């Protein structure tokens, strides 16, 4: 009478590894579809940028310089906020103070 056959550890390991690899492979393969979906949005963005002659993305819009990178001198500090520390790199590591806290009480 042979006892109930228990699954080998290596079987478990190979299955786990195989599944993980498969999952990654599948989403990588899906990237083509995503890119195609994105193409239209990209085209519209490009059209807008060209028509208005824009020179940089609208990220970090609170920065005085960043909305138009033409303003960014190499020596200028990276300012992220009107109230941010005008010092590199501390200015980007420390959050700007809460403006409401600095306002005088009503």
């Amino acid at each position, binding site marked *: 009478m042979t006892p109930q056959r228990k699954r080998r550890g*290596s079987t478990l390991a190979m299955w786990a590894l195989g599944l993980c690899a498969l999952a990654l492979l599948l989403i990588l393969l899906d990237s083509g579809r995503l890119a195609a979906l994105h193409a239209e949005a990209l085209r519209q963005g490009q059209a807008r940028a060209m*028509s*208005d002659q824009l020179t940089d993305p609208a*990220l970090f819009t609170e920065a*005085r310089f960043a909305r138009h990178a033409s303003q960014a001198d190499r020596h200028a500090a990276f300012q992220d906020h009107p109230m941010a520390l005008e010092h590199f790199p501390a200015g980007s590591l420390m959050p700007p103070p809460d403006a409401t806290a600095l306002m005088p009480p009503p």
Partner: protein
Amino acid sequence: MSFPHNAWLESQRGLIDFSIANLGRRRGRNLGLFLAYTLLVFLLASVVLYGDALRREARLLLADAPELVVQRLTAGRHDLLPAEWLDRVRGLRGVRAAEGRLWGYHYDPAAQANYTLLAPNDAPPAPGQVEIGAALARASGLDVGDVLSLRGFDGKPFAFNISRVFEAESELVSADLMRVNAADFRAFFGVEPDLYTDLALSVANPREVRKVAEKVLDRLPGARVIAREEMRRTYEAAFNWRQGVLLTFLSTILLAFALLAWDKASGLSAEERREIGILKALGWDTGDVLRMKLWEGALVSLCAFLVGYTLAWLHVFYADAPLFTAVLKGWSVLYPQFRLAPQIDLAQIATLFFLTVLPYVAATIAPVWRAATLDPDEVMRE
């Protein structure tokens, strides 16, 4: 049905059996290690994937930005330039087109945000009308038909009728944009009719850009000429720097983690030494013991890498990176909503793989190395 038996493969499977059983004996600890490692890979990969995709996107969007931008400097600071500068550069050879640009920033205390006002040459809005970006609409709570009221340069209120909100697809470039009529722009900012913010030049031949830039400098002493490439590089530098800070931060965690794993493992317990001795006494040679340990480290880190990377990919490209937007949005009032397109970069995957898997495997094998080479006779002695 049975395929030819390979002794080497069979022995490796046997070693893996032991490795898994070994991992299973301290299930809680090893699970914790696996989760921590997966989290680390997830964060690292997310930062890299997000940063790279964003950079790629920006580059693509702005591929047709003007080749040269001419600005006036007064006492080292950007100043408005006279319209006659336009005439001076228009005639230059190599300059296909030249236009004066009118744009500026306005800080709206109500929304605590910076808006970019632009008076375009191409299809400008009617006087009194404004076309706004989607993020601006969201932040101010206004929509088409509403009135956007801002204080002009002289403190007097200025009312704009919102005639359009830009398409969501272009948010990455238009989120904070306000397109206005040129006359309105000048009235709002108090800019004289014969002044422009800067000039945008398009150069037909990309190889002539530098030469044209030199000619412009000759014609317009005191001007600053910026090439598209320079703008791109500056922005990328800002990108790289931010990404670099995050990566350095995460890498130090990775290093700390590796050191911790090493430290925990480097003192082989008496029990572990005994077991290695038993294995050797039973007929496992040094190579077998080390290979078994290698499998142990490799399986855990390989799985952690695969899972972490997959999750990072899902996080950035399917879920729109909520972790990062939460952080970035914290400092930004007008944050654009946008999707990023994935691109497979094998070099990037390989680098991440080596940075995460190798240290872990090394940390698993190294402490065992010495014990594995010892004679098994220690097992015989109590």
